[in-house]
C-alpha cells in the first residue's frame, strides 16, 4: 500500500522566486495598461458615444460610436443572406439543429448528459445532417426548392464547419489507425504521405483545388456546386489534423496493453476497436478540441471562393449603397459570434484538461 501523498507545496510561492522579477512585473503593468486602454475604446464605441437602436438610421450619421439601428435593419440579412425572406425559419431551424447538436456533443464529452450514449449521438448526427440539407433545400412537403446559391450566412458557416468536422472525424480516426499500425506497411506509408501532404499546405490551396480542380475531375457534363466542392475539400483537409491528434493518443498508450490484449486472444480489430481506440480517443480529446476550434475559425476563408458564409454576408450588408460606413458594426457582429462560439469550445477544452489532470492524480 502506498502511503498518502503529502499535500502539494504552494506553487505560487515558488514561481514568485524566479518569475516575479522586476522585468515580468513591468511586463504585466504595461499589458494591464494596454488592456484597460483597449477596453475603454471598446466601451466608448459600443455604449458611450453610440446611437441606440430606437433612433432612426439617419441619426447614426452624426454619431462617432456604434449604430445599433444597423443591427435592427441588417441582422436577419447577415444571418441568412439572400435566402427567401418569408422562408427564413428554415435556415433558422437548420442552424438551431446544428447548433443544438454541437452543444449536446460538447456537453457530452465534458462528462455531462451521461444518459446519451455514443450510439445515440451517432444516430443524432446521421439524422441531423440530411435534415439540415432537406430543410435548406426544400422541394418536399410543400417547401419551395431553394438553390444552393441562396444558402448564405450562418447556416452555410455551420454546414461547412459542423458537418465538415463531423464527417472528417471518422476519416481522421481511420487515417490515425492506419498510420499507427504495422500490419499493413503499404497502407501505413500511404497514410503518412496523405497526412503530411495535407498538413504541409495552407488551407486556401486545398480550397482552391476543391473549387477549380475537383470539378475538372468529374466526367464531362457533370457539375458540383461550390458549396459541395468546398465541403469535400474541407473534409479531406481537416481529417489529416484529426488523424494526428488521435495518433498522439494511440502513441501515449503503453505497449503492454496491446500485448495483454493479444495474450487474451483478441484479434487485431478487437484489440484496436475495444481496447486501444476508446482510450486513445479520450486521451486525444483536448488536442481534438483545439483542432476543432482552428477548423471552425478557418471556415471563414471560404470567402475567397465566392461562398457567402457569415463573414461574407456581413460584408454584403455594408456593400449596399448608402451603408458603407457601417463596416465596423458588421465586423463586430461576426467577431462577437466567433468569440462566443469559440469561447464555448475553449470551455470544453478546459473542462477536459481539468478532468484529465484530476484523473492522473
Amino acid at each position, binding site marked *: 500500500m502506498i502511503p498518502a501523498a503529502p499535500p*502539494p*507545496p504552494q*506553487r*505560487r510561492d*515558488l*514561481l*514568485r*522566486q*524566479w*518569475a*516575479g522579477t522586476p522585468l*515580468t*512585473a513591468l*511586463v*504585466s*503593468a504595461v*499589458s*494591464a495598461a*494596454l*488592456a484597460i486602454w483597449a477596453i475603454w475604446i471598446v466601451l466608448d464605441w459600443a455604449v458611450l458615444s453610440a446611437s441606440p437602436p430606437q433612433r432612426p438610421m439617419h441619426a447614426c450619421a452624426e454619431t462617432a460610436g456604434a449604430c445599433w439601428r444597423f443591427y435592427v435593419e441588417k441582422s436577419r440579412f447577415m444571418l441568412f443572406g439572400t435566402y427567401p425572406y418569408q422562408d427564413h425559419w428554415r435556415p433558422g431551424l437548420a442552424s438551431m439543429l446544428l447548433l443544438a447538436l454541437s452543444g449536446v456533443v460538447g456537453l457530452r464529452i465534458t462528462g455531462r448528459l451521461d444518459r446519451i450514449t455514443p450510439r445515440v449521438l451517432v444516430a443524432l448526427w446521421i439524422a441531423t445532417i440530411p435534415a439540415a440539407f432537406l430543410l435548406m433545400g426544400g422541394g418536399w412537403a410543400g417547401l419551395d426548392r431553394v438553390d444552393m446559391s441562396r444558402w448564405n450566412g450562418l447556416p452555410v458557416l455551420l454546414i461547412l464547419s459542423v458537418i465538415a468536422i463531423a464527417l472528417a472525424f471518422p476519416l481522421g480516426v481511420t487515417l490515425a489507425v492506419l498510420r499507427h499500425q504495422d*500490419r*499493413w*506497411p*503499404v*497502407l*501505413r506509408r*500511404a497514410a503518412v504521405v496523405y497526412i*503530411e*501532404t495535407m*498538413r*504541409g*499546405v*495552407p*488551407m*486556401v*490551396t486545398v480550397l*482552391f*483545388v476543391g473549387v*477549380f*480542380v475537383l470539378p*475538372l*475531375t*468529374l*466526367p*464531362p457534363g457533370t457539375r458540383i456546386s461550390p458549396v459541395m466542392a468546398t465541403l469535400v475539400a474541407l473534409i479531406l483537409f481537416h481529417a489529416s489534423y484529426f488523424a494526428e491528434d488521435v495518433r498522439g493518443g494511440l502513441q501515449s498508450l503503453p*505497449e503492454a496493453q496491446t500485448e495483454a490484449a493479444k495474450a487474451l486472444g483478441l484479434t487485431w480489430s478487437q484489440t484496436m476497436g475495444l481496447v486501444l481506440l476508446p482510450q486513445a480517443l479520450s486521451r486525444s480529446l483536448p488536442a481534438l478540441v483545439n483542432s476543432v*476550434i482552428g477548423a471552425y*475559425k478557418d471556415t*471563414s*476563408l471560404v*470567402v475567397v471562393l465566392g461562398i457567402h458564409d457569415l*463573414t461574407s454576408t456581413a460584408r454584403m450588408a455594408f456593400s449596399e449603397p448608402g451603408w458603407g460606413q457601417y463596416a465596423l458594426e458588421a*465586423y463586430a457582429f*461576426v*467577431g462577437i459570434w*466567433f*468569440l462566443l462560439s*469559440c*469561447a464555448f469550445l*475553449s470551455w470544453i477544452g478546459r473542462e477536459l484538461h481539468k478532468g484529465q489532470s484530476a484523473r492522473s492524480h
Partner: protein
Amino acid sequence: MQQSPPALPARRPDWLGAGIVGLALAGLALLGVNIILNMQATGVTPGYGFLAQTAGFDLSESLIPYSSGDSYARVIVAGLLNTVVLALASLLLATIIGVLMGLVSVTPSPAGRWVAILYVELFRNLPKILVLLVLYVITVRGLPPVRQALSWGPLHLSNRSLYLPAIEADPRQLWLLAPFLLSILAAWWWVRRARRIQRATGRETPVVLVAATLILAGQLGFAALAEVPLVVSVPTFVRFDFDGGARVSVQFLVVLVTLGLYHGAQIAEVVRGGILAVPTGQVEAARALGLAPWTVTRFVVLPQVLRIVIPPMINQYVNLIKNTSIAIAVGYSDLMSVSGTIINQTFRPLEMMLITMALYLGLCLGASSLMNRLNIGLRNRSARNVS
C-alpha cells in the same frame, strides 16, 4: 521493453495494403484522365511551358530585381522569397511574444495573469483574417500619409512604409563575405574556448562582447583595407514618395504583427503548459542546494521546459508558415497572391496549384525536419551533459 522480443514470424508481403493503395491510385489516375479530357475539350493541354512567358504585372515589393517584363517563373521566386521573409520574421516575433506572455501567465501578480488569459482567449477565439483586417485599418488610419511622414533623422514612417537609410548595393561588396565568415569563425572559436575554460576551471570569460567585437572589427577592418565602396543612400522625398534607401512596407509590418499576436497566443499556452509541467519539487531541491534563482531557472527549469515545449512549438511554426498566406488580403505580394494572379491570367489552375502546394509543402517539411533535427541534437547534448 529493453529485451528484444522473441523472433517474429517472417513478414508476409502486404498484399491487402498494396491492393487498396493500388485501387486508390487507379482512382486518382482516372480522375487525372478526366482532367486531361476536360481540358482538351476546351483546347488546353496541361504543361509548364507558360512559366517562361512574360508575367505582365507588378509586385508591391520584391527582394530580387523584378519588373512586369520578367517571366512567370521569376515572379514565383519573388513571391516565394517574400513568403519566406515574412515567415521568418513572424516566427521570431511570435516566439518573443509567446514566451513573454507565457511567463506573464505564471507570474504571481494577478493582473499579469488576467492580462495573459485575456490576450490568449481573445486571439484563440477570433478568426485571423478578422484580426488582420482590423489591425490593417487601424494602422493605415493611424499612421500619417507619406507627405506628413514622421521623421527621426534619416528614418521616416508613414502609412505606406518605414523608410531607412541603406548601403547601396555594389558587386564588389561580395568581398566582404570573406572577412565576415572569417570573423564568425574566430568568434565561434572564442566561444568554444570560453566554454572549455569554464568547464575546466569554472572561470567565466566575457563571451558576447568579444564575439560581437570580433565580427564587427573583421567587417570594418577589411572594408577599409580593400576600399570596398560603402555608400549610404538616404531616403529623400520626391513628388509622390520617398526615393533611395530601403523600405519596409506597412502591410508587411501589419501581417507580421497579426501573425505574431495570433501565434504568440498559442505559443504562450504551450510555454505555460511547459512551465507548469516542471515538478515543483525539483525547484525546491535546487533552492535547497543554495543555487541562485537565475541558476535554478537556467539549469533546472529551462532545459526541462524546452524538452516539453519544443515538439508543439515545431507544430506552431509549421502552422505559422502556412498562415502567411492570409497576407494576400492586405496587399503583401506573397506566394499565394502571385499564384492567384497567374491562375487568373493563364487559366492554368491545375499547374499553378500544384506548384504552389509543392512550394509550401517544401517550406513546411523543410522547416519541420530542420527543427526536429535541432531538437534531437539538443536532447543528445543535454543527455551528454547529464552523464
